């Protein structure tokens, strides 16, 4: 498999996962619509099964397939990349089966919610192994990086291995017979936090790449940029050490990993974000270019999500307000990466025009409104991960806030659909250079 074919494969997996996640989101909405739900051939629990699969596809598969794509871009060639891609695709297909078959007990634990079904677990393992295989080729780049971007991607790959180590250590340490809810929560708690470092690193990679395209240099001087990524890697690699001090079922373990993000993420994000803001303020030329829009909106949405993280409640919707905004920021960066770099690199540049700008505006401002609604609803006491009567919408303020959530979500979906449709159409179009199918 050529390096270009591998890159296209990762790109298709990443955007394809978003497309399927979008279809599941639509089914989620239908499964909660009176009368319409009678037409679905699934049980009432289908809502949770679709929700979990939607979350895993739209966050883990999308982000990690983008990491696979970046690994193929900075260290393409060899056999581990295509083998990793094949495993990751097989794993993703397996992840879909339990939701479609309406099987598996749902567990809405934090970070990596799961369906308790052998095929779902097998899918997770295959997918995780595939990404690991693809990232193996990044490790030599930590010592001999040809560019700042290559070092940044290599560090992000290194963070991924730290997350895998946390999952493995947790699986070994959690005693047999632990209840399913606590088992899944603590199995994915430590590694899940390390994956948040990875998500942040992915956004910072996007800022670096898009900055180089837009301004001819990254947001920060090269040495400082390397230090930023090195620090993220250091925190991630220190994380598995914590299992030796705080056993994974205890309260200290939970708090220490929460603290990890407070210690590891604000400084690198502030530095790189400050660099992006400074360049955006100083830049002349086309402020409406896709790169400029992706940089500006991802910075704004991510920063607001970061600030919301200082005001979290224990179990209300201020938590989803925080993570929808920070994940929205990362998504905007990755959308920019696809539009500005990935599609042109694959010989399939987007057509430009209004649609190119609209996808960023719809998605970015929509996510912002969506997160604001969640924040207001949470401050008024609406519990997270609840539906219908459980939401306790007993005041006009709570109802209005949840209305804002829906409005923002709807606007963001339009931006997401424009992006997924445009990217998939180009990735699936047969080009002159493609081999026979």
């Amino acid at each position, binding site marked *: 498999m050529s390096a270009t074919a591998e890159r296209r494969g990762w790109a298709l997996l990443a955007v394809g996962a978003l497309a399927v996640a979008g279809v599941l989101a639509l089914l989620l909405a239908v499964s909660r619509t009176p009368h319409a739900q009678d037409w679905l051939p699934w049980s009432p629990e289908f809502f949770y099964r679709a929700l979990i699969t939607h979350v895993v596809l739209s966050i883990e598969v999308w982000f990690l397939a983008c990491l696979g794509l970046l690994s193929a871009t900075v260290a393409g060639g060899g056999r581990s990349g295509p083998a990793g891609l094949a495993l990751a695709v097989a794993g993703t297909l397996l992840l879909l089966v339990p939701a479609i078959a309406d099987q598996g007990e*749902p567990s809405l634990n934090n970070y990596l919610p799961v369906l308790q079904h052998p095929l779902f677990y097998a899918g997770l393992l295959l997918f995780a192994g595939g990404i690991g295989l693809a990232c193996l080729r990044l490790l030599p780049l930590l010592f001999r990086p040809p560019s700042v971007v290559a070092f940044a991607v290599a560090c992000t790959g290194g963070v991924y291995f730290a997350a895998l180590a946390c999952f493995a250590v947790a699986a070994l340490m959690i005693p047999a017979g632990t*209840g399913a809810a606590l088992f899944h929560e603590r199995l994915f708690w430590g590694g899940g936090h390390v994956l948040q470092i990875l998500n942040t690193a992915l956004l910072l990679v996007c800022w670096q790449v898009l900055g180089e395209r837009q301004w001819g240099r990254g947001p920060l001087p090269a040495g400082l940029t390397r*230090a930023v990524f090195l620090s993220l890697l250091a925190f991630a690699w220190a994380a598995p050490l914590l299992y030796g001090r*705080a056993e994974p079922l205890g309260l200290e373990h939970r708090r220490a990993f929460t603290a990890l993000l407070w210690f590891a993420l604000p*400084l690198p994000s502030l530095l790189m974000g400050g660099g992006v803001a400074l360049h955006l303020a100083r830049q002349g030329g086309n402020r409406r270019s896709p790169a400029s829009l992706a940089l500006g909106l991802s910075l704004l949405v991510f920063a607001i999500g970061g600030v919301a993280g200082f005001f979290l409640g224990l*179990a209300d919707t201020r938590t989803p307000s925080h993570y929808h905004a920070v994940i929205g920021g990362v998504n905007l960066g990755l959308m920019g990466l696809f539009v500005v770099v990935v599609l042109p690199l694959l010989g399939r540049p987007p057509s430009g025009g209004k649609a190119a700008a609209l996808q960023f505006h719809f998605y970015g401002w929509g996510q912002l409104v969506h997160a604001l609604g969640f924040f207001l609803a949470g401050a008024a006491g609406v519990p997270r991960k609840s539906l219908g009567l459980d939401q306790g919408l007993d005041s006009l303020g709570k109802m209005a806030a949840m209305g804002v959530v829906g409005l923002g979500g709807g606007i963001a979906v339009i931006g997401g659909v424009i992006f997924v449709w445009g990217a998939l159409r180009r990735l699936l179009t047969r080009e002159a250079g493609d081999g026979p199918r």
Partner: protein
Amino acid sequence: MVRAERWATVVYLAICLVLLVVWLSLPHDGPATDRSTMSEAEFRAGWRAMAGPDEGRTPVRVAGDDIYLLARQWTFAPDLVVAPNHRYRVHFLAEDVVHSAAIGGVELLLWPGKVETISLTTPGYGHLPLQCGEYCGLGHSRMSGSIEVAK
């Protein structure tokens, strides 16, 4: 300029190293709580006496200094009415799976069969928030207790 960038890099890495060491060495176990020696049988006897003949199906006005709360998927039982500015010993027992009780700025992990106790002084008025902070199943997010402060 190059010199300034080098210094910035060194200072940044030094700050990160300090943060890393602090994170690894800092205790993260939170505020200390009372060590409970109460057995499950003693708890259940106390709970039955407090909850009354209808077993806590209606809100209970607490008479003494001890409060007994059962944590089970996905509720804290019973609902309570407590006196303002009063110091209570609050005893928790998880009945089914692991829960936690986040109350008065402290969180206790509740293991089935093991009684946990905390001392807490009620505010002058209003509602005392009590929430489960440990994922305990699909209804976890709505697992909160009702403790009303009233004379």
